[in-house]
């Protein structure tokens, strides 16, 4: 079943076109890596889906409903959880408060308190370090811990899809391994749909799943990560000269 459907989506900043006519179809439970060199438009695409950056054309459907032009909070409430680049923890709030902000959108549903307590436990089980430091300010956490926190915060919203922009940014390789390990475990456990943006395709090839390669705002390749990863087409797309 299609969870996220992008049809001919474009993003423009003034006269600069960052994303030109991208169409992607993402099924429920799928893991999709969007890779591509710096400036390929990956982050812009993600921000456009989340409603943070306006689209200049095309439309976005989530779970069968049109979400183009809707506010970020509305889109989040439909089950699209965004973890933006640079992690963006609320540094002056405690770790637990950060997690509670993520859970807030369900505060009107009956049984919220019990549900939230259970979700909190589950996040703490996945990331024990967060439990240990739960009353500390989030700004004091290390980069890897902050990455865990924002993933946990996204999980508190009980999303259907988590979109993560560059989870490995600024992290030591072994910390990145830890983050991915848990992310993939969570995905399997909850049949989450994952949309991960990474500059390099290495991680996608390691983990497997579907991979899309973007370049100059367009989708260049779309297929199985392992098959694409070592192909000549991939090499050409990354290092190839401008052909237009």
């Amino acid at each position, binding site marked *: 079943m299609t969870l996220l459907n992008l049809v001919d989506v474009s993003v423009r900043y003034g006269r600069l076109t960052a994303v030109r006519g991208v169409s992607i179809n993402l099924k429920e439970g799928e893991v999709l890596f969007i890779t591509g060199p710096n400036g390929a438009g990956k982050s812009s695409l993600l921000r456009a889906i*989340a409603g*943070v950056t306006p689209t200049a054309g095309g439309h976005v459907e989530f779970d069968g409903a049109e979400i183009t032009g809707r506010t970020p909070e509305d889109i989040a409430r439909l089950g699209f*959880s*965004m973890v933006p680049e640079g992690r*963006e923890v609320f*540094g002056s709030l405690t770790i637990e408060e*950060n997690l509670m*902000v993520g859970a807030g*959108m369900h505060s009107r549903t009956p049984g919220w308190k019990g549900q939230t307590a259970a979700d909190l436990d589950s996040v703490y089980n996945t990331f024990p370090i967060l439990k240990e430091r739960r009353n500390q300010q989030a700004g004091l956490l290390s980069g890897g811990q902050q990455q865990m926190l924002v993933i946990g915060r996204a999980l508190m*919203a009980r999303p259907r899809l988590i979109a993560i922009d560059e989870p490995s940014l600024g992290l030591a390789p072994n910390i990145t391994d830890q983050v991915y390990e848990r992310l993939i475990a969570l995905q399997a456990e909850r049949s989450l749909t994952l949309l991960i943006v990474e500059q390099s395709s290495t991680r996608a090839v390691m983990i497997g799943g579907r991979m899309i390669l973007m370049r100059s705002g367009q989708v260049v390749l779309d297929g199985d990560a392992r098959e694409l990863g070592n192909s000549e087409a991939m090499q050409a797309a990354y290092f190839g000269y401008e052909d237009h």
Partner: protein
Amino acid sequence: MLQIVFDALSLGSLYALGALGIALIFGVMRLVNFAHGDVIAFSIFALLWPSTDAMAIVFAGNLPWFLLIPFVLLVGAGLSVLCEIVVFRRFRNTNPATMMIASFALGFVIRYFLLMLYSSRPKSISLLPILSQPVEMLGARLPLLQLITIIVTIAILFGLVIFLRRTRFGLEMRAAAENFSMARMLGVRANRVIMGAFALSGALAGAIALIFGIQTGTADIQMGAAVMLMAFISTVIGGLGSLAGAVLAGFLLGAASVVMQVILPVDARPFRDAFVYGAVILVLLFRPQGLIAARGTKERV
């Protein structure tokens, strides 16, 4: 001596409340709301029937205190929320300078609206006259109002801290103040948070109006502007966007004013404000980010 302490605290209370009202709104939308002072003036004039006579025709001012206080707070909150819906909402994605100019303009609209209805002459009013009576305490004679101002301010500050720390809405406001866009991506409703901030800020304006009105016994169209300037300076010294900083700086500024009044040589006293503002410049030279730098603004610069 005790008299000086109480003077400093009660003046500081006014500045702190005003600074909080500005910092709350700045926190969620990077707007320096210069219309805040005119919301203060409006709140007090709402107690009077429109007339251009020098004698005030009291309308809601005759209410018993337990109705009068909520009335003024509600007027402040209501006008402030109205400003948000009618004006500031349209400017939400513009740059801070544009928003600031809009707030100036809005302030003038409110001020001249009052001018039209009530004329520019200050009107004498007597609100809750019992509060103007002096009380003896620890050998000093203090107006009861001064005592109440300090107590009320501390109560408001405590209430605000509890609201921000313990309630869901408070949590959302703090998150939004630090990173508005991220908060929205987590489902925090922008409109609700911003309107909440305006309502709180307006209620604080109402509180200042009440204290000021009782203290001076007049309703003056200019009264908001005087507090507003000091309050604005307090938010800057405190670190724009930092609530704790705004309160701290408000009290410091109040204390500085009162202390200078006492220690300056008699000949220099008329120029007290120059000394106060000189101290402000000194503080900003050494801590341009303010006493307590707010996280959200630090990253932006």
